[in-house]
């Protein structure tokens, strides 16, 4: 029985969050009526010329810097030529041999230790214009194909990784971390359903044989609509390639590179017609567009403007706030607004541990179970901080703190109003002592049990106390009971 290594490389197309297209002023908004966001430039009418959208280039630069890429001082535009009806000029303005960035990396890890932390190298990231959408009539041979050119000319950043991932899980982790990074720096909404983020995966196996390692043919997988789908497609493909290897012993180079499409319902990849010869895109420099020069100060300014990136933020949450790697990961993975929320709560309470517990548990659960985002959550960070303070001060029994929080969310009220509506009032210390004394007097067995070392006997008294006054803070009551028992004659 031989063993194998899975080799995965990813190509990610990210739609940049610009208001207008890459080479004209048309809107990039998703979901408009077909062919309403077009102009003579993006539909390639004769005589029109492209003008580069500076903002798109800035967003691309930002991404490239965040991916630790080298930014060459000179980059140019090339035409990638192929005929297709959703590409009105029959060439796509892209970047070929001098991309705007190259040789970067993205670190990935798994807080639960499912794989060793690793650095995935980025081969290059370049800007290009998107094509339109073709809608084919499924009744074969009948009906016409429809073309929507709204998307034509939308700025895309193509990010190509080196084949550094060794499992479907690592591929998924790369995508998750990449999406997080892109969202943090605000360059894309990364909405896969709307096509803002598209993934193609290249995968093959390096198989241990008696003659050494042998590589299987590389397969490119397309049509994956979620990260989970990427993971499943890769898992399927690894199995399929392993079986195929055992049957055919076909090696890399024995067959042309094949493209397979992922069928999410059937859970299989299917071969798409492999081209007999590799496509010749006849790339050449676009004579309509001047090359772009990027000075070292431009890249430096971008670096300055980036703010704290996820990896650095995780480190800071661990080192400065004493969070566990797991909690830091959970928080950071929620995105920048949640982290800001946490940081505010931590600052207002001076208790990052409590803040982390509340945010990772109650706040995130609420977000998950409701329609709320962190921005629309009725409990502002200051309100949550107030609740935490009141709990610590004993004004809110810790046993009822969650109830108070939920009331704050549901009724959109502050801590005081929530407490009032729940009938929570701080129990006076004297009142608490009196209650304690009364219950001890009525339950002498509890005293003897505790003295005999059965501390949990107090539990019964706590229950009775809460029945008499629901505001009793069980922790404080327990402490008082034990004190009084010790002092009792």
């Amino acid at each position, binding site marked *: 029985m031989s063993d194998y290594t899975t080799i995965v490389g990813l190509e990610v197309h990210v739609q940049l969050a610009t208001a207008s297209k890459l080479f004209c002023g048309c809107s990039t908004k998703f979901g408009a009526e077909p062919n309403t966001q077009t102009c003579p430039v993006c539909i390639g*009418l*004769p005589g029109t010329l492209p003008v580069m959208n500076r903002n798109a280039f800035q967003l691309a630069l930002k991404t490239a810097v965040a991916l630790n890429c080298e930014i060459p001082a000179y980059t140019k535009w090339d035409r990638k030529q192929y005929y297709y*009806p959703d590409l009105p000029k029959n060439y796509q303005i892209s970047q070929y041999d001098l991309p705007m960035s190259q040789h970067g990396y993205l670190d990935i890890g798994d807080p639960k230790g499912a794989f060793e932390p690793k650095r995935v190298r980025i081969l290059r990231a370049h800007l290009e214009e998107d094509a339109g959408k073709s809608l084919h009539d499924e009744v074969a041979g009948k009906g016409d194909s429809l073309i929507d050119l709204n998307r034509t000319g939308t700025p895309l950043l193509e990010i190509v990784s080196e084949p550094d991932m060794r499992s479907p899980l690592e591929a998924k982790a790369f995508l998750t971390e990449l999406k997080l990074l892109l969202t943090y720096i605000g360059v894309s909404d990364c909405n896969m359903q709307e096509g803002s983020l598209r993934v193609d995966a290249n995968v093959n196996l390096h198989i241990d044989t008696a003659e050494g390692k042998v590589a299987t043919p590389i397969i490119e997988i397309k049509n994956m609509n979620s990260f989970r789908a990427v993971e499943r497609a890769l898992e399927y493909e690894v199995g399929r390639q392993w079986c195929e290897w055992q049957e055919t012993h076909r090696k890399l180079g024995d067959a042309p590179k094949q493209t397979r499409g992922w069928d999410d319902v059937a859970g299989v990849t299917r071969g798409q017609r492999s081209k007999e010869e590799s496509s010749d895109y*006849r790339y*050449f420099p676009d*004579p309509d567009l001047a090359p772009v020069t990027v000075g070292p100060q431009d890249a430096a300014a971008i670096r300055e403007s980036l703010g704290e990136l996820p990896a650095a933020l995780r480190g800071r949450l661990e080192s400065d706030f004493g969070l566990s790697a797991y909690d830091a990961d959970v928080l950071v993975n929620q995105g920048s607004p949640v982290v800001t929320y946490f940081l505010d709560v931590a600052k207002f309470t001076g208790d990052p541990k409590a803040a982390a517990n509340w945010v990772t548990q109650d706040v995130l659960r609420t977000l998950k179970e409701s329609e709320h985002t962190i921005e629309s959550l009725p409990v502002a960070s200051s309100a949550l901080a107030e609740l935490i303070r009141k709990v610590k001060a004993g004004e809110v029994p810790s046993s009822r703190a969650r109830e108070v929080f939920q009331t704050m969310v549901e009724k959109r009220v502050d801590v005081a109003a929530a407490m009032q509506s729940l009938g929570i009032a701080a129990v006076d210390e004297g009142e608490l002592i009196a209650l304690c004394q009364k219950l001890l007097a009525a339950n002498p067995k509890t005293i003897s049990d505790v003295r005999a070392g059965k501390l949990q006997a107090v539990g019964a008294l706590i229950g009775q106390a809460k029945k008499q006054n629901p505001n009793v803070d069980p922790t404080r009551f327990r402490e008082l009971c034990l004190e009084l028992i010790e002092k009792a004659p």
Partner: protein
Amino acid sequence: MALFDQTATEHLKGLESGALKSVELTQTYLDRIRAVDNRVGAFLSVDADGALKRAEEIDERRAKKQRVGRLAGLPLAVKDILCERGKVTTCASRMLQQFRPPYDATVIAKLREADAVFVGRTNMDEFAMGGSTENSAFQVTRNPWDLERSPGGSSGGSAAAVAAGMAPLAIGTDTGGSIRQPAGLCGVVGMKPTYGRVSRFGLIAFASSLDQIGPFGQSVEDAALLLETIAGHDPRDTTSLDVPVPAYSQSVNKPLANLRIGWVREHFGGGLDKEVESAVRAAFEVYKSLGATLHEISLPHSKYAVATYYVIAPSEASSNLARYDGVHFGYRTDEKEMLAELAADRRRLETAGDKAGLEHLDSALVRMYRRTRAEGFGPEVKRRIMLGTYALSAGYYDAYYLKALKLRRLIRKDFDDAFGKVDLIAGPITPAPAFKIGEMSGDPLAMYLVDIYTVSANLAGIPGLCLPCGRSQAGLPIGLQLQAPALEEERLFCGARMFEQATDWDKGRAKL
């Protein structure tokens, strides 16, 4: 001298003084078009009503002392390659026979703003590919000096229109000589500006890195006036240069002192017609008499210019013309016929049991592309698309396109070096005067070689101008080409005007 024989500058004086109305002037040219264009064939379309209406409106504004533009009331012909909102813009191709752009080219907008009167759209080689205007899908244009001869091309319609007195001014485009060469063959002034001087927005592209729009006129002054109107930076064309435009029409009459003129050794080798050579040498003598000094210079890579050009221009063209596929606009093959043809092909292959043939049978989309382009383009356009596609293909790119780019740099450097020693370069515009219609059409390579003196300026991006400097025994015009460093159009105009004022070649008119 008939009114239509006068220059635009002269007309403008009359219009400004009130001695001449634009309606009268426009009607004169429209009458002239009606009288002679059935023989010349310079216009693809004439908009008599629109022109007269416009002329009337400008006359009114002028009479009311309202603000009018730089060219107010001057009739003007436009090569049918510049997009004009709502007007059919054909590029002399079946492919665009019905194409009405929903936008104005920047140059059209500027001319409109300057209150020029558009009289019509002129014939050209299809997509500006050619040097004879014979490659038009619609008609042949004839040289007003000899109707058996070609006016040159690709802007042959514009050159012939001016030469025949059908318009005092015309717009052309020059990718490898397409303004200067027909100007030379038709005995008018034509000028190609520095690459980037005039916005290309709305100019239907042939070869984007070489195309420039420029003026035709009866005199250097006219050309200066027209360039001044159309030049300038345009944010819609990022290859247009963001530099101020001098007032050429103001400075054109100032002679240049201590002018150093270079003549290129390589331009006087074999293949140059004797009559052309002596006319050009006589022009050098004129310059000497005006105080200029003549200097022999070398452009060592000029012998590669035609080869370089015929790799770069078709490469860009093959890409620029890919959009004419029948999908979104322009000509599309008859779909019913296309589907029937495809079905017949399928039946034939099935009957023959030709499995491989069936496998390779076109999809309906591919067959639509094939037929549309086969029917929509003429032979020269197809030839250049094939040349360019080949030059850009994997495995050939380095040997052709990349090598051509390297040569282009060397050709540009030749000019840089030369302009270190001289102010202007002067020489022939074509190896011979106008050739007979049909004479070259069977020999594309001979046709390409006519471009030998013109393509270098496009490759180097420098301005060039052609003005009449003589007449052959047969009475055909001979042109003198002047070239200047990039952005030195002012020097070019002044230098050309010096010669024009010292000679009478500009006064000659074709007899029709």
